[in-house]
């Protein structure tokens, strides 16, 4: 049975369950967030010499509605507005049998990694996301074809997840899922992230074969205000219409909370095979063996320290490395890397409203062809609010 049929069946069951409950049983919660960010790239003399950055203002808005139909069935709808217009970030039903067993069907970001839970700009203290999850604010984003896994990554499918409390000190979470997966056109050289979230070819699977994945995480309570979470995630599937090319993303994460200090470390890597039938499209000779894939590694480590009830300080080091052949016109080498150093603050000026300021130093392995630079500097000022 195709994934779309499973989803339709599950959605129908959820809808019938919802209709079976009296109307006055509905309970709704509405939440929202917004962030206006201004990114300054002082190393860019003018826009024409540095076209590959979203410098200037960017706006992100989101509104979320959660509806409880009954004690076991709920729905979540989240619509967001960002650099590429309106997007349905969530529209799913949860049918919960028990804490340990929940069926999620519809459109949602499948469980992967630790950061995605905090991807809303109101939920993280810096203006932008860690590089492995960047969705467009990174410099040279076109050269890099974005990050390892641009977050959020809403997709259509079904997920079975659950949580199990182990005594008073531990919590085990798991998730397994099947979703449409990322897309590209025929004979691709990489995933096409724009096509993956574009209605251009309809919001349907381009190859009829779901991407599958899983996550498991353990949280252990260290003290009244301290805990540690360790998790592992993986997803894989095909992304071209002919099901010839594959991708696999694996990751591990560790988050330590010690009172007002948060330390987060995460690593992920994506192995993506590509079509080599036309060797002329590549910059380097295609190797006879193991020449048909690239691996993109990404990692970040950050420390977030609450200095006062109003002020947080954040320091982050993140980076990516891409190994493998590139297209002939690419400015990347076959071993390209970028490391970014960030120092920022978040200051609460009112309950639910923060000013975020940060400075980032970028260190690329390859020179930019227009400017000849390897080092770049960016500065952010943002206002983020939630309700």
């Amino acid at each position, binding site marked *: 049975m195709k994934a779309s049929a499973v989803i339709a069946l599950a959605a129908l069951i959820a809808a019938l369950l919802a209709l079976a409950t009296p109307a006055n049983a509905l309970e709704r919660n509405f939440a929202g967030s917004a962030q206006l960010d*201004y990114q300054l790239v002082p190393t860019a003399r003018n826009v024409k010499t540095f076209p590959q950055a979203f410098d200037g203002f960017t706006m992100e808005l989101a509104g979320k509605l959660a509806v409880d139909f009954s004690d076991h069935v709920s729905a979540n709808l989240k619509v967001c507005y960002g650099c590429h217009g309106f997007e349905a970030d969530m529209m799913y039903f949860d049918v919960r049998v028990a804490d340990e067993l929940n069926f999620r069907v519809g459109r949602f970001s499948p469980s992967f990694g630790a950061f995605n839970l905090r991807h809303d700009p*109101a939920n993280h203290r810096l203006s932008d996301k860690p590089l492995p999850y960047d969705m467009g604010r990174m410099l040279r984003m076109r050269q890099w074809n974005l990050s390892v896994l641009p977050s959020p990554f809403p997709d259509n499918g079904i997920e079975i997840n659950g949580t199990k*409390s182990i005594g008073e000190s531990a*919590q085990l979470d798991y998730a397994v899922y099947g979703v449409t997966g990322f897309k590209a056109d025929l004979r691709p050289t990489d995933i096409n992230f724009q096509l993956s979230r574009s209605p251009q070819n309809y919001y349907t699977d381009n190859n009829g074969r779901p991407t599958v994945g899983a996550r498991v995480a353990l949280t252990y309570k260290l003290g009244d205000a301290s805990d540690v979470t360790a998790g592992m995630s993986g997803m894989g599937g095909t992304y071209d219409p002919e099901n010839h090319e594959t991708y696999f993303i694996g990751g591990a994460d560790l988050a330590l909370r010690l009172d007002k200090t948060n330390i987060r470390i995460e690593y992920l890597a994506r192995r993506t095979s590509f079509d080599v039938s036309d060797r002329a499209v590549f910059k380097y000779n295609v190797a006879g063996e193991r020449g048909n894939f690239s691996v993109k590694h990404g990692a970040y480590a950050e420390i977030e320290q609450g200095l006062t009830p109003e002020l947080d300080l954040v320091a982050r080091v993140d980076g990516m490395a891409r190994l493998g052949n590139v297209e002939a016109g690419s400015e990347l080498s076959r071993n390209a890397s970028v490391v970014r150093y960030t120092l920022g603050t978040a200051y609460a*000026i009112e309950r*639910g409203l*923060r*000013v975020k300021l940060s400075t980032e130093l970028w260190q690329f392995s390859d020179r930019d062809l227009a400017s000849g630079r390897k080092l770049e500097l960016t500065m952010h*000022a943002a206002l983020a609010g939630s*309700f």
Partner: protein
Amino acid sequence: MIRATMLLVFAVAGTASCGSRTEGLDTSKIPDELRTDYQVFSTKCSKCHSLARPLTANISDYDQWVRYVNRMRRQPGSGISYDDQAHILRFLKWYAADLRQKAEEKRNPSKTAPSASIPPPVVGHIPEPALGQDGGT
């Protein structure tokens, strides 16, 4: 130069015009008996989102909080144990009553509503009340 100035103005104006206010509550206004409960609430409920989210949700119905906190407890990596949940809900029961009291005072400024009473401590798992019942207080 214009862009750098814009960045600076944007940052300074945002900070200076509004002064400062903590994301949480002024603990001096919380009854002594509930300080520990508030501490658990402020620690656990700011792990994935800002503390402003629950504090500005304007939920004044305790049963709704019970369902909400149970939902948050089930979030991956929440780190909210049953014991933590009991502390969080004890604080939120008082906070919900305080919200209702303030709303009543706003409706009838001439009448002074009684202060929110301090809920007794609860131990262990607090089950979710069924939907459709009259909201508890």
